[in-house]
């Protein structure tokens, strides 16, 4: 079944249409789409194939395949018999969308239980026909008195079976069922390679992205973002686009957009439209002083999640060697491959939004609030978008499209221009990390302190469910409500006296700011571990120890030790030549260690991270093939963020507006090889893999740079410009 057919049939049971009436003979009537109905999770079609309704999202790393394998495993089916239906608020419950690499750990955990329960119920129903015991092979059921099948038992009909829901929405949503899922030793489908399902249509161009959604009578829109943060509209000169076919202005308070029947006309109108703005003068400090500004800024909130012993006393104790350093990280942009797009249509009081957002259920909620519609009058449908690594510009596009559909009475397609995806997406927060440690006379680390200070990672929320967190909401006067949160290193270094903490500072501008901050892939992970894992290296050197041996000496978690040993062995750490570096981190129970070997061109300042080795332990492995490519993407995107990425700004606005002013990794700088060692632990519940590796990359590269040059790069990115400057200072 191709994707198109699949989408056509996917709504079949749960949305509305056309299950033939004879199929509904048993207990007709569609159960509500609520988490405590088994029918909300699993459907058996008339042909015996199974649909799993998933409330999280795959963003091109094959999560849906892992879910299919898990459901197939529990239901004794081949993985090819399971279709995973995701992204449509009409067919799935809100499991939180793509969020925190919890797709398998939380999302599929629920589906595993639902599938196991479906298998149990089907077994019971089969037993009434064929006696006990029953055995199932690929949906065919055999008992002492004969054979039946899933298709015969429930195909095209509903289970009408209740499960126990924990009453949570989003990532923590879970269910309890009487059925007991299989033990890993019984697995036949889980743990095996299975190909991605979204590759062929992308490679042959046979199906569309959200940018390709077209509706009858649709208008094209471009939103006019203000030239600076927190601008107010003084006046709009509609006459300035008079000559452009069908183009007109839509304005509501400080939100301005143009619409036109033809896309190019909308682009031209957006360029031609004259808007006068009331400016806020110089809301940003000089960029060169960014980190100095952060150091001096008022602390809004401080937390000390790890506090052990008396760090201050140990740092002050006479005779100890004090080691200290500070590390700086810039603002970074999602800069997705294309600026976000959304299409919205309002028909008879109901709004449908096609969105690339990784959290379509929250798009539904946000649009309902923005348009003042009941939640059940809004349907959000995810269609693959131009890349998604967190809270990018997709949420804003969806809200803009919905508002414009209401304002014009027509279906509206919004797509940003390049600057909307680079200058105006929510940013990963800039920050400074202060690290101090004391080493006693025997070379033992007796005090360790690591404090991060920076902008909150949630100036705007991680989803678009509240208009306050969208540019359009803010432009219409809804005040933002920033959440103050940062993070600390995730590791198990067993230093006697240890303090890990964070401090957040106020935003430059709270309202409509291109430097507003939110989640970017592995929120604050690369930022923090760039500092903490470099500092561990600095401590190893200060103690006169090898960076691998030093880590092994202090890490207390055996899984952490295991990834370090694995990566050291695979890379031949002891015998690697110059330019080698290692970094390690945990992320919600996934442990990763990375070794890299770099070459540094002192003249050009170019750093080539030529060879990578990764050792990765995320518990039970669902699909090793897809896991490898997911890890590779983490390495290369992480390398891009390490070597090149820095949002530039002047006193008034963000000046990183395109790929020239926000460079990312070029193929010339891609590694020659990425060797991945997977540690499978079937006895441990699977944890995330979409983000953990990326947090190790910056420090691994910086440590390798030090090994190659003897110079510490305590400021990211390690761009040619900064590298040359650092080498010339040394």
């Amino acid at each position, binding site marked *: 079944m191709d994707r198109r057919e699949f989408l056509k049939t996917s709504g079949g049971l749960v949305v509305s249409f056309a299950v033939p009436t004879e199929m509904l003979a048993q207990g007709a009537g569609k159960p509500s789409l609520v988490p405590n109905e088994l029918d909300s999770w699993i459907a058996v079609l008339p042909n015996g194939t199974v649909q799993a309704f998933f409330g999280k999202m795959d963003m091109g790393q094959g999560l849906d395949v892992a879910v299919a394998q898990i459901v197939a495993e529990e239901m004794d089916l081949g993985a090819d018999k399971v279709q995973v239906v995701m992204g449509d608020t009409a067919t799935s419950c809100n499991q939180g969308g793509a969020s925190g690499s919890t797709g398998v750990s939380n999302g599929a955990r629920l589906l595993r239980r639902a599938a196991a329960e479906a298998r149990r119920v089907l077994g019971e129903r089969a037993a009434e026909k064929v006696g006990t015991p029953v055995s199932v092979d690929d949906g065919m059921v055999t008992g002492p008195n004969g054979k039946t099948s899933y298709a015969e038992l429930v195909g095209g009909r509903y289970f009408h079976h209740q499960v126990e829901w924990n009453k949570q929405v989003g990532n923590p949503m879970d269910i309890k069922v009487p059925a007991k899922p299989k033990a890993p030793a019984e697995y036949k489908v889980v743990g095996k390679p299975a190909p991605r399902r979204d590759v062929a249509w992308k490679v042959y161009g046979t199906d569309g*992205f959200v940018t390709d959604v077209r509706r009858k009578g649709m208008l094209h829109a471009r939103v006019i973002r203000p030239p600076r943060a927190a601008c107010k509209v003084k006046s709009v000169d509609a006459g300035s686009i008079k000559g452009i076919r069908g183009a007109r202005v839509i304005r509501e308070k400080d939100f301005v957009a143009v619409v036109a029947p033809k*896309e190019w006309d909308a682009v031209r109108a957006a360029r031609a439209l004259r808007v006068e703005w009331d400016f806020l003068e110089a809301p940003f400090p000089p960029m060169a002083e960014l980190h100095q500004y952060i150091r001096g800024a008022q602390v809004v909130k401080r937390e000390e999640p790890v506090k052990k012993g008396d760090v201050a006393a140990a740092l002050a104790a006479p005779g100890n060697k004090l080691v200290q350093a500070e590390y700086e990280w810039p603002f970074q942009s999602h800069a997705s491959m294309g600026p976000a797009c959304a299409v919205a249509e309002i028909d008879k009081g109901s709004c449908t939004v096609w969105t690339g957002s990784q959290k379509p259920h929250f798009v539904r909620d946000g649009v309902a609030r923005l348009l003042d519609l009941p939640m059940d009058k809004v349907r959000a449908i995810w269609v693959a978008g131009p890349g998604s690594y967190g809270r990018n510009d997709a949420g804003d596009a969806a809200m803009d499209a919905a508002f414009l559909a209401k304002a014009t009475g027509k279906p509206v397609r919004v797509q940003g221009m*390049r600057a909307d995806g680079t200058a105006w997406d929510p940013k990963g927060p800039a920050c400074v990390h202060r690290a101090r440690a004391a080493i006693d006379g025997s070379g033992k680390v007796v005090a360790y302190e690591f404090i991060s200070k920076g902008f909150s990672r949630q100036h705007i929320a991680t989803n678009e469910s509240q208009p306050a967190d969208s540019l359009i909401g803010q432009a219409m006067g809804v005040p933002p409500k920033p959440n103050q949160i940062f993070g600390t290193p995730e590791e198990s270094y067993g230093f006697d006296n240890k303090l890990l903490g964070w401090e957040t500072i106020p935003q430059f501008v709270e309202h409509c700011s291109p430097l507003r901050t939110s989640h970017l892939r592995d929120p604050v992970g690369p930022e923090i571990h760039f500092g903490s894992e470099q500092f561990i290296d600095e401590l190893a050197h200060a103690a006169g120890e090898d960076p691998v041996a030093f880590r092994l000496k202090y890490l207390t978690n055996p899984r952490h030790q295991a990834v370090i040993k694995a990566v050291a062995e695979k890379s031949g750490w002891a015998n690697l030549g110059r330019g080698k570096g290692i970094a390690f981190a945990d992320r919600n129970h996934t442990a990763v260690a990375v070794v890299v070997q770099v070459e540094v061109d002192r003249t050009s300042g170019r750093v080539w991270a030529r060879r990578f080795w990764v050792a990765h332990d995320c518990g039970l492995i669902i699909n090793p093939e897809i896991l490898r490519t997911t890890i590779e993407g983490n390495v290369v995107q992480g390398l891009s963020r390490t070597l090149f990425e820095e949002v530039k700004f002047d006193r008034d606005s963000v000046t990183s507006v*395109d790929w020239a002013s926000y460079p990312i990794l070029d*193929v010339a700088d891609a590694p020659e090889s990425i060797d991945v060692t997977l540690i499978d632990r079937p006895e441990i519940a699977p944890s995330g893999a979409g983000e953990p590796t990326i947090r190790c990359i910056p420090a691994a590269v910086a440590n390798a740079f030090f090994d190659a040059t003897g110079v510490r790069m305590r400021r990211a990115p390690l761009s040619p410009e900064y590298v040359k400057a650092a080498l010339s200072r040394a």
Partner: protein
Amino acid sequence: MATYRFTVDGKSVSVDAQPDMPLLYALRDDLALKNPHFGCGLAQCGACTVQLNGEPVRSCVMPVSAAAGKKVTTLAGLGTPEKPHPLQVAYVAEGVPQCGYCINGWIMTAAAVLEKNPKATDAQMRDALAGLKCRCGTHTAILRAIKRAQSSMV
């Protein structure tokens, strides 16, 4: 406004447009093709790449008037699931794309390189692909797929 005639993936088409309208808008908006994609509008990323008489061009900055009388080939015209280009076969085998939005640039450019120099070295290929963007970081998979395609073309 003027009328421009050209072929897209072997079919004759005509588009009424202003001469400076980029070809991309003709392909997407007037002809309702699903690819190429708008990525930057500045010829900086390659998401809009098509071949014009066999040469890769960035359709987001090429005026539609420049396509008049020429042959435009898109990703969907390069090969089909039934009659695939070796690069497409290799991309599927390697599971290259993640979000997949960048794919036109890489495949349409690499296909043009392989047409002229099927034995292009890794370094030559990296040179030829310079400037293309992939935000998901699939570069190493892309290079693997190109090698795989080259070995299948021998």
